[in-house]
Each structure stands twice: as C-alpha cells, then as structure tokens.
C-alpha cells in the first residue's frame, strides 16, 4: 500500500486481499477498506488514470488491465502518482 492510502487501511504497509484477477482483488480490498475506493477506481469501476497496479512488478495497464490474473502468492503493488520533490 502506498503511503497516502495507509491511513485508510489502519497504517498497514501490506494488506491481504483475495481474488483471481486484479479486479476481484481490488473489489475485495475496497470492500474491506471502503475509504480507499475513490482513490483506486473511478465511478465506472475502472482503474483511475493516476493509479497503477503492478502484479509481480509488471504494470497491468498495458497488459490485461483489471482482468490480469493474480496467482495465489503474487505481490500486488498499488501506486498512485507521487509528485513530491
């Protein structure tokens, strides 16, 4: 979890979520932590254009997007754009 979303998940750096695809995983995650939904998904349930999801360090945006399959022990990184300097 990126720093800006950690407060919404009780300060955790890593959280568990279930799902066979990124979409299912994010649905499960946002059900557990409703506060982060608006950060990740737009009104139509698609990934916001300022957020990236990496499955095992590969960007899903240019692959199968939210339909990218997630293996049971996969590491999924959620990363909104960060501007600080």
């Amino acid at each position, binding site marked *: 979890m990126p*720093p800006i979303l950690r407060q919404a998940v009780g300060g955790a750096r890593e959280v568990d979520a279930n799902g066979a695809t990124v979409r299912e995983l994010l649905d499960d995650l946002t059900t557990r932590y409703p506060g982060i939904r608006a950060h990740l998904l737009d009104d139509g349930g698609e990934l916001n254009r*300022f957020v*990236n999801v990496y499955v095992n360090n590969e960007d899903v945006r240019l692959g199968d997007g939210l339909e990218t399959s997630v293996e049971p022990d996969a590491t999924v990184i959620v990363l*909104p754009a*960060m*501007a600080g*300097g």
Partner: protein
Amino acid sequence: MGVATYREHLAAVKSGITEISAQEAAARVAEQPGPVLIDVRERDEYEQGFIPGALHIPRGNLESRIDNAVGDRTRPVIVYCAAGNRSAYAAKTLAELGFQDVVSLRGGFADWKQNGHEWKVPRTLTPQQLERYSRHTLIPEVGEEGQLKLLDSKVLLIGAGGLGSPAALYLAAAGVGTLGIIDADVVDRSNLQRQILHTEDRIGMPKVDSAETALKALNPDVTIVKYSERLTSENVLEVISGYDVIVDGTDNFPTRYLLNDASLVAGVPVVHGSIYQFEGSVTVYAPRVGPCYRCQYPEPPPPEMAPSCAEGGVLGVLPGVIGTLQATEAVKLLLGVGDPLIGRQLRYDALAMEFVELKMHRDPECPVCSKSPEEIEFIDYEQFCAAPARAVSAAPMFTIKEAVA
C-alpha cells in the same frame, strides 16, 4: 648478446617488429574501420599536437592501461611516439601481450608532421582540472575524454529543493559544465531539514541565487543559468531547449506533466525523481525510446488525492538518496555509459530499507508520446498541490497554446 648498448638493444627490438612509414600509416588510418592509433609519448609532448583519433597512453602506462583501452587483441594497432624508438619498444610489448597486428610508425610524429599529414592540438584538461577530476579520469569509462564531455554538458534542474539540492551538488562536483536551475521560491527555514543547497543565512533569498552561491563555492568551473520563475506552457520550450538532460525534482503535478509533454517536443531525456514521507521513486523518461510519464500515469490525480510534501511531510535524508540516484543517471546519460533506468522504475522504501524495480512499457496509445511533436499541446493544470495555501477544489484542464516544434 651479453651486454648491449641502447643502440644495439633498440636495433634488436626494431628487427623483431614491423615499422611502417608515415605515408603507409596515413593510408591505413583512412581505411574504414581503421586501426587503433596509440600515442605513447609523455603528456607534455602529446599536448603539443597529436594524430586525430589517437589514444594517448604514455609508454610507462602502456601495459597497465591497454586492457581497458583496447580489449580486442585482434584489432590492428599503430603505435607512435616522437621519433619511432619508444614506439618500437611499445610495439614489442603489445605483441608480447598478444596483439596480433601491431606496427610502429617509423620516424614517429615528427615524420608524420613533416610529410604534411593531419594533426591537431588536443583539447585537454588544465592542470587544476586534472587534479580536481583525477578520480574520474582514472575510470576507463570516463577518462579525460569523458570529463571533457561532462564539462561540455548542460543539465537543467527543475527545482532547487529536496531532490534538486543533492543532484545539483553532485553534478557540479562532477564537473557538468552548465547547470540550469529553475525555481520560483525563496529559501524558507522549513527547507533546511533536507535542501542542502541552502543555508540558515540565506533564508529569504531566491533559491536560484542561494543555489548559485553553493555550487560556485564547490566548483567554479560550472556555469549556472538561473530561472527564478515557474515553468509554464509559455516559457517551457524556451527554458528546456539546448539542455542535454533534465533532472526533474519539482514538487507538483502541473509542472511534471507540462515538463513531460514539453520534453517530448524538445526531445530531451528527463531523469524523474519523486518523494513522499519515507518513499521515493526514480526513473528515466527517454523521449520515444522508452515510456513517458503519461504512459505511466495518463492524468494527474485530483487535488484532494494528491498531498504534497508540505502537507504529508518527508524524511530529510530521503531526497538525498533519490536526488543522488537522479544525478547518477544524469551523468550516465551524459557519458553514454551503463544501462539507464529507462522503462524501469526504481522504488525505495526507507522504512523497510527495500528497493523494488517495477517494469514500465511504452503505451502505443499514450495521449502524448504516441503523437508527433507538432501535435503535442501543452496543458497548464491548475496549480493545486505545490502551495497548500492556494489549494483549490478542482483541477480544470485547459490548453494555453499549441506547441510548435
């Protein structure tokens, strides 16, 4: 032969190697691919003039430096000195080291010049520069040539803040000849926890002036070009044109997106760094070679989802790590060595002390880099996340002007 005079020994050495005339050498140098020319004279002789394209390796350093200079033993080599004697010894040594095609220039550089062949006075570092940059010139990948390249290079720093400070200091120390710095802010006491370009006694001074003071004190070789303004769609092309590399260490999304779009028009690579609290990120956006910022993040987040360091805070040493990585990538790009961080994003988590490399790809449908430079329009997003006091609730998008390449 038991005891030999120098003359006798030299004659024996020359009989064991091949010598060629200046005319033959000139013909071979003109071939493509030509041979490797090695000038084995001392530095003071070399500085008076050399054969263009020759590597300068003084005779005394020949054995120790040849592996790094010419790895391939099958490449044809022509060695020369002033009159053809030292080069005879050098040719013998190179043959003993396994070079298969080594010849010595008979009559040396003197004959070469006398026969009217091309020569020139090399551009060299001054004695002071040789001393200052000696730890660079010792590295084969840099050498005197690389250092001269750095001195000829121009890097633009977007922001003289947390990331810009260490990046600018290291680039100045490295001898990057021209450093442009754009920053509209003045030094504030709250900057000093991390912005190591600035000092307590320069609070209130424009950051570009404070930066110039620090960088000039570190290395007077460096020319500082100051822009005490914000980057806008109006000035961006004018500011960034002519730079070899841009180091993006700004603190806000509007500037990052504007810079990305303009760098694609100007064709200048951007070494991108960003930080927040305990985490940072570095990557290199090489126009049309790798992905751009918009391939990664097509649009900026709305302001309420984009807290700045001024709101969220940042560990003071974090920009030291990220800004230094940016400077490293910039120097690599300038020298043309190593594997740049293109298509890869390096993430650093200081709390976990963990680096993760994420893979990025060019988006064939990227809203910006899929277009030709003439089609790219610049967008001035509302300044919403740099100065919290001026935060507004929405980030309207509007096009100010069409960029013409």
